[in-house]
């Protein structure tokens, strides 16, 4: 049986209840950390675990924490990024809805490690019903002495609050999130300085994804080395994969990193194969931003090695023949799906979500959507296909935040791997699907 850290007890009725969570061993990580470990000990275990940020960028969590200026006299903040909005990604919603105490417990041990006495969970406004579930759980944690003043008599105090967003994908970018938390438009900040130095209210701040934080109690309880023993290469531990599209069993799966992609798609334990016995055509493996891969390249690398669900294996071959693990938003398309139309919905998404600060992104996302509408609508020319490639190239790397890259990569990769499908749209002067 694969190790389960995040979905271990997810089917237990009433898990969102403090008493149920506690009976299953909940909040022991808080007890262990506050009574037997120093904040630096906790950071050390997280470093040893090899845990990488589960929001998409995959930056090592322990290293991110170590950038915090602990000597600063300013308040330190831990902020949970619960702005889950990357198309194909729906794992974090699950955690807050069914297992909010594991997130809260992670917030407590993380805040303790960072020396934060106030922490926020920034949750997308559309998920207000999840916010209410979490707020109820927070109230229970206060009542039971795990939040508030002098937690468990340790002398450590923490206040934890939820903060709703209001509909903006860009607020998943950590500096845009902090702007939004300060009551402003979600315009990403120029970096450096990074949030670890100048974050929320100008104070040292760490922003971590929900799944990352919910993993912390297990690491504190079992030790960083036990976590690092799971997985493959530099891809340590388990990862939630939210699988959707044309598969028999869409849903949220916790895998040990290193699982073969083929097994993930076709075994009954996971996606259960392609719906209606159809043929696998393409996969977007890590949320809408990452390069799309055709069936042959998602199952095997260009060198013919089986592709694994890991940071390294999915990236094997670079963007020419590889992709990224990203957020774990796994979108599967069968042979009936039109690559151009799917890409058009992504392009519309990025145009809608661009904050408008940087011209290459603001203008480029709009141009790419218009050209794709033209091709999909039967009015495209062969030159339009090259124009798309050219625009994507000029958006990528030329913006303050990664939204420009996120908008460019799907376009560039779809044309790289499915150019003949774009050409067919042009030749037929209509969508062939």
């Amino acid at each position, binding site marked *: 049986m694969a190790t389960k850290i995040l979905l271990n007890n997810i089917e237990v009725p009433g898990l969102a209840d403090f008493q149920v969570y506690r009976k299953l061993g909940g909040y022991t990580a808080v007890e262990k950390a506050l009574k037997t470990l120093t904040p630096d000990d906790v950071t050390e275990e997280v470093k040893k675990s090899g845990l990488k940020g589960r929001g998409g960028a995959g930056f090592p969590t322990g290293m991110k924490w170590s950038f915090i200026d602990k000597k600063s006299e300013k*308040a330190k903040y831990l902020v949970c990024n619960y702005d*889950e*909005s*990357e*198309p*194909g*990604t*729906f794992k*974090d*919603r699950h955690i807050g809805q069914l297992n909010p105490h594991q997130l809260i417990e992670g917030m407590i041990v993380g805040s303790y490690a960072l020396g934060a006495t*106030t922490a926020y969970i920034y949750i*997308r*406004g*559309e*998920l*207000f*019903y999840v*916010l*209410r579930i979490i707020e109820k759980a927070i109230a229970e944690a206060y009542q039971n002495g795990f939040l508030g003043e002098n937690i468990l008599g340790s002398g450590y105090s923490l*206040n934890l*609050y939820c*903060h*709703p*967003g*209001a*509909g*903006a*994908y860009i607020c998943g970018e950590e500096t845009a999130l902090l702007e*939004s*938390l*300060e*009551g*402003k*438009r*979600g315009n990403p900040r120029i970096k450096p300085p990074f949030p670890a130095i100048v974050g929320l*209210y100008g104070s040292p701040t760490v922003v971590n994804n929900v799944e990352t934080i919910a993993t912390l109690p297990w690491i504190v309880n079992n030790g960083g080395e036990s976590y690092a023993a799971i997985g493959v290469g530099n891809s340590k531990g388990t990862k939630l994969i*939210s*699988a*959707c*599209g*044309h598969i028999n069993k*869409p*849903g*949220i799966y916790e895998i040990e990193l290193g699982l073969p992609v083929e097994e993930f798609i076709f075994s009954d334990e996971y996606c259960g194969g392609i719906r209606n016995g159809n043929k696998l055509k393409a996969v*977007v493996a890590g949320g*809408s931003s990452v390069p799309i891969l055709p069936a042959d390249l998602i199952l095997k690398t260009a060198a013919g090695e089986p592709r694994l669900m890991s940071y390294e294996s999915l990236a094997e071959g670079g963007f020419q023949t590889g992709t990224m693990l990203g957020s774990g*938003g796994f*979108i599967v*398309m069968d042979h009936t*799906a039109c690559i151009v*139309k*799917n890409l058009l*919905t*992504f392009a*519309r*998404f990025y145009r*809608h*979500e661009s*904050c408008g600060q940087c011209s290459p992104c603001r203008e480029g996302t709009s141009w790419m959507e218009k050209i794709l509408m033209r091709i999909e609508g039967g009015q495209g020319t062969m030159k339009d296909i090259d124009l798309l490639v050219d625009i994507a190239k000029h958006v990528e790397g030329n913006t303050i935040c990664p939204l420009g890259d996120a908008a460019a990569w799907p376009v560039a990769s779809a044309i790289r791997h499915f150019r003949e499908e774009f050409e067919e749209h042009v030749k037929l002067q209509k969508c062939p699907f």
Partner: protein
Amino acid sequence: MQEKNNIPEFNRETLDLVDQIIKRYPAGRQKSALLPVLHIAQSENSGWLSPEMMDYVASLLDIQPIEVYEVASFYSMYNLKPVGNCVIEVCHTGPCWLNGAEKIIAHFEARLGIKPGETTADGKFTLKTVECLAACGNAPVIQVGQEYHENLTAEKVDNLLEQWKRENKVSHTNPYL
């Protein structure tokens, strides 16, 4: 909400809630409460933010009205024009599209006789398309107020519409209460 000479005013219970939210942020950082308070303000103002309501929120948080306008116009959940009692938001991004979101939109259009962005003549329903609601595994998905409705079919849409008509559905309830 009580209104005197067009100047909105929250009742005591709502003002207490606003105070409680402001206290979550450090002293002098009350502007941080803007997003949550705008959610409440919208729910108290028939689902949209009028200039008067935004000015009132500015006064509650002791910030300039322009600071409220620039935020309200940035985030897609805030409506700057009147909406129907029941706002139906249909996701149409990739994964929902792969699973038939366009058919669901067409079905709503046919049943309600309006296009996305429009409100029915009786003011009961507004239809909107929205970007990814993070429920892709149960596509196609819609949001109505704080409710998600997932794995939609034409039949489910018919049942929901019938239910909402019967109960005079109002989607803009105070999200904290």
